[in-house]
């Protein structure tokens, strides 16, 4: 397999992992709104459903994007595709 094909394969698996995490926190957990509300796990004292909609999921998305960017940069470096003159 060519270098480029391998790079793309790794890029694609990173995409799938990223989208899986994204799916859980943007769609998955909201199937269980009522269960989250009844949960005794209350971050900072808020009901879990309320917390996830106004802070939890949002914060996770921010972290997820930076994590994704880091991972992708590692993949690019591994295959020599990173730009040296950057930033």
């Amino acid at each position, binding site marked *: 397999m060519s270098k480029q094909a391998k790079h793309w394969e790794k890029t694609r698996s990173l*995409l799938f992992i990223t989208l899986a995490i994204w799916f859980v926190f943007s769609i998955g957990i909201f199937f269980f*709104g009522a269960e989250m509300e009844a949960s005794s796990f209350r971050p900072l004292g808020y009901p879990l459903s309320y917390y996830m909609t106004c*802070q939890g999921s949002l914060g996770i*998305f921010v972290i997820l994007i930076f994590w994704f960017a880091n991972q992708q940069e590692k993949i690019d470096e591994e295959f020599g595709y990173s730009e040296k003159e950057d930033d």
Partner: protein
Amino acid sequence: MIKGKFIDNLPKVYGIYTGGFLVFIILMAIAESMGMSAKLIGIFFVSFTVGIYAIIGYLSRTLQLDAYYVAGRQVPTVFNGMATAADWMSGASFVAMAGGIYFKGYGYMALLVGWTGGYVLVASLLAPYLRKFGCYTVPDFIGTRYGGNLARVSAVIVLTVASFTYVTAQINATGTIASVALDIPFGIAVYVGLASILICSMLGGMRAVTWTQVAQYIVLIIAYLLPVFWISNKMGAGIFPHFMLADEVARIADLESQFGLGTVKNTAADLATVPKGLAGITKAHSEVNTTPWKFISLAVCMMAGTASLPHVMMRYFTTPSVKSARRSVGWSLFFIFLLYSSAPMLATLSKLSLMDPNLATGIIGKSITEVQNIDWYQNWNQANLMFVSDFNGNGTLELNEFFMGGKAVVLATPEIAGLPYVISGLVAAGGMAAAMSTADGLVLAIANALSHDLYYKIIDPKAETAKRLIVARVLLVIIGFAGATIAALEIQGILGSVIWAFDFAMSGLFFPLVLGVWWKRANAQGAVAGMLLGLISGTAYLIWVRNGGAGFWGVTQLTFGIVGSAVSLVSMVAVSLMTKAPDAATQRMVDEVRIPSGKTVLGKQH
């Protein structure tokens, strides 16, 4: 001229700017304590900030294509994040969102999840690849990737429908704020707002819009957060409400049941006396009050719409590299998060200020005449944003007898909570900044697509630089005026139009964009079918439901993008597979897009 030197000095320049703005706020506060009138403070705030944006817009004027279309591709990561945040957060986010959460609670917070989660899709599926492509506009990518004028024109059509729906709402918002702050009629204020928007973008295109958007972000974030922290602290809830409001949220739930929320209902005859556009609280504050599908379908539409709206995507064309485009998405979302995580806190503080009888500001349970004599009640009642009526005739204001407009939650809460008027002036300037920055991005996205893709690429490919830039500017003014004219008619509310814009963009552009990068087999015929059938079916569904149609799959007029994008995906895949695979050159181009380093695919062939 602003050149490389300006880019190197950005932190310093904007540091001084922020300091200057804070000094201006303090000066205004001193002026207020010395007796300056509320009206004059409002005028000062709006004209001072708009004046600054105009100066930045003038200083960023340019005669170069690269600067006009993509800010010379040298906007640093973090600053591009700030500019995107301002580009993104519109009058709807700033003025309307906290109000929506105040009235509808959990069900409405799907917008918070949708308007942030979409950035994960932007970062992972699209932004870095489109940056590598090196296009000027989103239809530029579609037109080159798929090939052919038909694909290009289809993309321009979808872009124009979605962005134009969006921009009328933003011009409407600038008009509303300008008319309140400057005390002029709405019909004139709309054009004052338009003039401010055009000053920022006309001379310098994307470069001018970039640097004004950074300035606008700083104003709008200060204007949103300062009152939230202040009110929270004043109420004794702690200086940092995001981590400390759990007791207040629980307290609201107690008060809601004490005041009979959900058990005491208004009769239809009583409700008919309430002015149009005002509402009472009918949904509990923190309870789960909607079906999972309703919540999720709205979130999905907003996420896919985020990834398809061209004015957001084109911000990532301005970064120096693919890597910085990717990181820049993270910074954008971080800056957006600062405001979005505060909106539910503002709704909580606002509600408690009004409801809690233990607070001096609480009005529920007081006598009706007492409430009617409060200064701020009279002001906002006059502005048609507040209303009380003694339905049950007991002389006391009950929870179900108090009505408010959505905008009032952001605009009036500082006054209700007893903050000085200078804060209200600041909030007006912030709302203006939010609406202007988004309108700028949208008008530019439409005008650029028309001037670059329609005029230069199709009508007159031999046009010289000077002529292209003149056409771009003329179109900018025309689009702006068309938007303002429709905004002046006030057909649809701000929030409704914004949500529609997301659905339009999702219907027509989401799959053609994503599959253009991730599916080599996708071809021009498929893309054209996807864009046009997606847009047409989505629009048809909207019209059907608006006219009393029953709908299916629980899809409403706010989530019609689900139908549109489903049709778009199916038709795009089916037509692509039935027709010839893209030629070898196109396949190579897609391969090239997937490699983050090296020259852009389009190179210098603009």
